[in-house]
């Protein structure tokens, strides 16, 4: 193992591609120290991130709070939606551009107790509203596989940072697809757990009945390890699920022979890019080769799910974001002439266009005379979509399909038409409406841009999703591929 400064700056390919378990082994055997590891990844951030813009803040690495924790000494970044005491927490917004969190989110507290080492805060679409990371006050993020492509969103910085091997893992949040879609676009593995599995305390709210924290990492095995440390009941989150967390790592090696995999026939339609469909079908063939059985299932009404989500989530956002008023924290406009002016200009200047659009849609959907036509109707649609999943799970144990209709699109491709951008979320949103766990697993490439396989499970069946994803990853190496910009940097630095 290299120990000189020069070699550390390189962070050789074996180290930056190592699994979290391998890194833990290296730390336990004394091959390197937590400080060595932090230095390697901090140096990669320093050299590589200027071309990606995946981080909005860097954090000076602290000594691991625990030497014995399962993540002791493992570097990571938080999506900048998680509060970490004393750290600037921006949520990708001008509104919070200078706000320093006065307390820890439960997720941060648990990762710290587990010994993980925070290296920075990741860029994101403002207040988690977006599918391309182009809605950040801190600028767009480049996709490490293709600088002209978006990394996806809203956890775009987290996915790009892991893809470029700037950190072994990152936290993310998923309200309508914000972990799975960027994971798919960046060729990394992401898990959005069941609603209520991971505490939302200290995770800045967008749409509270959908928001769920999760993990983006290189592999399902890494996700299993990290999720096990993050998940579990928290009395400070009133919707936290009070049920035990299984040992996700212990279940990874189980055989998937006889597993019933549901294939939603409606998802393989004209809306799906044929090349993406081919990659996803090939991934499903691998599951069959591993012993799984496939059954065709019905998951209709994705368009109704989309319409419902884009009323419900903005409605919840309009309520959640009313706290940003220029009085208690965050941005305040210059020289307000009265209180009304203070509120209106603070919010007009502090929020970006997409956030304002969603607040206005949500306010409209909740306003007198429209509540029944929009909000209540959308809640009924949520029931319809959830019922479809329930029926599907009578026939199968997990559902497999695409994460997105296309690979990562070009920057600027959808910015002129928000309704068109929303179509990107057509396969991820139904899962959030039903509160189910979902994963994105790298499943190949289309013209150099990654494609993701989506796995969806029953409520609280994360262990099975991780098991299926891990078994798939024993048979393929898509998740081990590294973008050339990350590999070149590793080599350049090693030689230099």
């Amino acid at each position, binding site marked *: 193992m290299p120990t000189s400064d020069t070699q550390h700056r390189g962070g050789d390919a074996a180290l930056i591609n190592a699994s979290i378990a391998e890194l833990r082994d290296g730390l336990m055997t004394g091959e390197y120290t937590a400080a060595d590891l932090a230095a390697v990844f901090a140096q990669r951030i320093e050299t590589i991130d200027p071309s990606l813009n995946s981080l909005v803040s860097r954090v000076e690495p602290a000594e691991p709070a625990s030497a014995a924790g399962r993540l002791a000494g493992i570097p990571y970044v938080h999506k900048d939606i998680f509060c970490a005491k004393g750290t600037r927490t921006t949520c990708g917004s001008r509104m919070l551009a200078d706000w320093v969190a*006065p307390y820890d989110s439960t997720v941060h507290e648990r990762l710290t107790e587990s010994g993980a080492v925070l290296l920075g805060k990741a860029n994101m679409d403002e207040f988690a509203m977006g599918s391309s990371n182009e809605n950040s006050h801190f600028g767009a993020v480049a996709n490490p596989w293709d600088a002209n492509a978006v990394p996806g969103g809203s956890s775009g910085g987290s996915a790009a940072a892991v893809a470029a091997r700037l950190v072994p893992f990152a936290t993310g949040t998923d309200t309508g697809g914000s972990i799975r879609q960027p994971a798919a676009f960046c060729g990394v593995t992401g898990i959005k757990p069941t609603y209520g599995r991971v505490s939302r305390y200290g995770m800045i709210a967008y749409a509270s*009945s959908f928001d769920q924290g999760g993990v983006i990492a290189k592999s399902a095995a890494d996700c299993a390890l990290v999720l096990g440390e993050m998940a579990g009941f928290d*009395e400070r989150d009133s919707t936290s699920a009070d049920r035990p967390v299984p040992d996700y790592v212990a279940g990874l090696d189980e055989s998937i022979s006889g597993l019933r995999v549901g294939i939603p026939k409606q998802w393989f339609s004209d809306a799906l890019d044929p090349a993406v469909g081919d990659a996803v079908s090939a991934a499903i063939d691998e599951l069959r080769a591993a012993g799984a059985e496939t059954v065709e299932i019905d998951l209709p009404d994705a368009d109704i799910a989309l*319409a419902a989500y884009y009323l419900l989530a903005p409605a919840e956002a309009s309520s959640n974001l009313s706290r940003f008023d220029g009085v208690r924290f965050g941005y305040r406009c210059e020289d307000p002439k*009265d209180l009304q002016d203070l509120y209106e200009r603070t919010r007009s200047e502090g929020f970006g266009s997409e956030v304002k659009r969603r607040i206005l849609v949500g306010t*409209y959907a909740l306003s007198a005379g429209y509540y029944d036509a929009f909000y209540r*109707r959308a809640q*009924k649609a*949520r029931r319809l979509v959830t019922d479809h999943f329930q029926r599907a799970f009578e026939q199968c144990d997990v559902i497999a399909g695409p994460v997105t209709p296309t690979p990562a699109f070009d920057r600027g491709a959808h910015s002129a038409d928000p309704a068109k951008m929303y179509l990107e979320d057509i396969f991820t949103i139904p899962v959030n409406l039903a509160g*189910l766990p979902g994963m994105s697993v790298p499943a190949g490439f289309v013209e150099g841009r990654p494609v993701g396989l989506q796995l969806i499970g029953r409520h609280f069946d994360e262990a099975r999703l991780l098991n299926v994803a891990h078994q798939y990853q024993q048979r393929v190496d898509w998740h081990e591929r590294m973008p050339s910009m990350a590999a070149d940097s590793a080599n350049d630095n090693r030689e230099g």
Partner: protein
Amino acid sequence: MSLTNDQLQTVAHLARIAVEPEWTEALRSDINGILDQASRLDDPRLNELEPMAHPLDQVQRLRPDSVTETDQRETLMEGAPAQEQGLFLVPKVIE
């Protein structure tokens, strides 16, 4: 269902967001695009369904009515844009 300019102004006021005149038309068109998608919710199959507020149909958990948080006033005031003597400052409200 589409939003008129007057309605947009009313909603913007309710949301306390100042909409610049040069943005009004584009914004109205964007919002109407989103509301057009909402016409999918006219589907008659939805009529008889029970509205769903929580993804797991849970009800809100209650906790004992006791103080659990400590006084953090000074720390919390540090994030305030304007303050004096531990109080938030706002423009004069009473003439």
